[in-house]
């Protein structure tokens, strides 16, 4: 595989052809906010937090779905981009109920981290406060639509890694909801294997272990790398 050279924030960087821009940014230690991206899952390009400026292109591009190219000139933290990221996070906070103080994920939440990192200290938009249900019918896990940001990591991990495709999305626009099977209670699902992968990849408190209380929930993503290494390279060494 050939190597390409590109410029990121005025610095020359080499990368392998076919790599995504986001992977290169992470490799270089450039902090890039992401929510829908998770290494090991297919890219969605939906949260729009990793938008970057490419010189010569009038449009902003999401780094997670942009492949590196020779002589690409990338800016990742211009004033405009930081402003947009903040606005997008504010929109997410205003969309449903994200009151950290009473959330199982308080302190461990990716949405909360991103907001703190970027310095989002208030939301200028009206809180929509939709009236959403919780589903506690599963014996081990709980789904709380109020905390869901529709990143669809649960949908992807269940389809791509577990192979069960229990999760999907229904409705459209702000009325989109993640659903189980044919929109039924989680506890009644016959396709769910109760593996808990969806819970572990969920960036917020939308999916959590039953019984967890405020700030108790912590999630592990490293199982993904382990499974993929095992499947792709036949290397099974957990905990490395």
């Amino acid at each position, binding site marked *: 595989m050939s190597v390409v050279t590109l410029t990121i924030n005025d610095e020359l960087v080499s990368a392998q052809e076919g790599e995504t821009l986001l992977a290169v940014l992470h490799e270089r230690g450039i902090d890039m906010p992401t929510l829908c991206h998770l290494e090991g899952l297919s890219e*969605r*390009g*939906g*949260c*729009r937090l990793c*938008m970057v400026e490419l010189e010569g292109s009038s*449009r*902003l591009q*999401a780094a997670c*779905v942009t492949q590196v190219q020779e002589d690409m000139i990338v800016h990742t933290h211009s004033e405009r981009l930081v*402003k*947009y990221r903040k*606005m*997008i996070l504010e*929109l*997410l906070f*205003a*969309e449903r109920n994200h009151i950290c103080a009473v959330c199982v994920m308080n302190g461990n939440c990716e949405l909360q981290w991103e907001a703190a990192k970027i310095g989002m200290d208030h939301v*200028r*938009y*009206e809180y*929509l406060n939709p009236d959403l249900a919780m589903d506690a019918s599963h014996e081990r896990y709980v789904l709380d639509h109020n905390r869901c*940001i*529709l990143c669809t990591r649960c949908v992807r991990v269940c389809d791509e890694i577990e192979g069960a495709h229990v999760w*999907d*999305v229904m*409705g*459209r*626009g*702000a*009325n*989109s909801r993640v659903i189980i099977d044919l929109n039924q209670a989680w506890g009644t699902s016959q396709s769910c294997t109760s593996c808990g992968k969806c819970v572990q990849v969920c960036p917020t408190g939308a999916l959590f272990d039953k019984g967890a209380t405020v700030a108790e929930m912590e999630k592990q993503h490293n199982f993904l790398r382990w499974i993929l290494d095992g499947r792709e390279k036949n290397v099974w060494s957990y905990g490395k």
Partner: protein
Amino acid sequence: MNRADLETMAQREVQRQQTFRCRILCCASTPCLSSGGSAVHDAIKDAIKEGGFDADFQAVATGCMGPCSRGPMITVQTSGGEDVIYEHVTPEASRQIVAHHAAASPAPVEYILPGDIPFFAKQKKVVLANSGFIDPERLEDYVARGGYTALGYALREMTPETVCREIIDSGLRGRGGAGYPTGLKWDMVRKARGDRKYVVANGDEGDPGAYMDRTLMESDPHRLLEGMAIAGYAVGADQGFLYVRGEYPIAAKRLERAIRAAERRGLLGSRVLDSNFNFRVDVRIGAGAFVCGEETALMASIMGMRGQPVPRPPYPAQSGLWEKPTLINNVETLGSIAPIIQHGAAWFAEIGTAKSKGTKIFALAGKVDTTGLIEVPMGITLREIVYDIGGGIPDGLDFKAAQTGGPSGGCIPAAHLDTPMDYESLRALGSIMGSGGLIIMDERSCMVDVAKFFMEFCMDESCGKCVPCRVGTVQMHHLLERITTGSATAQDLETLQDLCVMVKETSLCGLGQSAPNPVLSTIHYFLEEYMAHIRDHQCLAGVCTLDQAPITELALV
């Protein structure tokens, strides 16, 4: 069937039509049907039967004739005489019309619409040339007007390369709205590597008030199939998909019938017109999402997945349906193909302006005297469309603005009435050509309310995949709602503008990227109206209620 058989079929049909002394064409397009067109058609058939005129009178259910607000429309063709057009025809009037043409009674003058009025005189019909003259459900009618000769010519006399070159030379640009050069797209798909390729016709027309594609599919389905087959030959595809909006059952039915008729005669399917070229067309019906008009979402829908866009690149020309190179064109674009092959690229390039060639169909709606479907040469001024073709604004009111491009477009104020209608000029004004929706507004329209209407549309139609569009449209709608109810502050207008720019620049697909356009364009041209709402609690057009006050002011009371 080969080209000679096609010729014979055309001659036979022309001869058959000439045996009738009088052909009564009744519009059977959706607008006329909804104003009672089928009753009129039945009455005419009855009157012909009762009068015993079967031998020399023929009643034909055709496609759209244009002035939809004057429907039901009928056109009477008499051998040797000029066509007579009748408007607002009732079943009683249609009996009178039949009797008149049978020379038994005076002409029902109150129903006659003169054929030389500017509505007809200023138009140039290329894509809609057959619309209103042929029975869309009869293949013979289309063939009699030269149908499928362009396909025959392309298959025998041209190579795929020369077909693409011809389309490039014609200067045809995508009629779906963006205006990408069609020939270039064809050439890209032709050159793309793939063991299979596909052609997709995008008939998922969703802009409020727009019905160009529906009319073309309903009135002249074979024209579209011929365009698709030529496209298939040019790019090397043997399968086409016609994506029709779920709300267009008549169009889907007529297309299905047209496909079957063409396949039976060897004009589609295996060995088209006795050549080595095979081309199948299948209809796919949408399930009601506006976003499926976006090409990547449309392809997802064709493949049976949730109709959501995916980031481009890769473009469909490289990797489209089932990751094969896919040509996706708007229905109207494909409708322009047969005339280009038939009359040549030079003929087509002479119509229109330097950069926008050919004609464009607009669905003229709103506050004009005659609304309907018009086809005009590119570069015609908005003034000509509103005052000549549309017949001006009714009730003696003034023109305020024209909205083009639906929820992705913008408004053109009165100061720019003399703008030529072409891709570049409209873009320079902050609007877009769009697919062809053209809504004329008079002084009684509130521009904030108009912006709110389109934002509500986008909010409902956002697919929910990307955050800026999913939540941003809701928040923009909230802010507009506040302005129209009187509870907005000057800060809200600033927040709204900021949000518009962000959603425009960060959204994933065209829907979100263009959703703020109606707001930005009305703020640009009608800022004083926004200010009147916010500062003076006044709606100049008298539309908005403005019965609330900003929270900050309430606290002071």
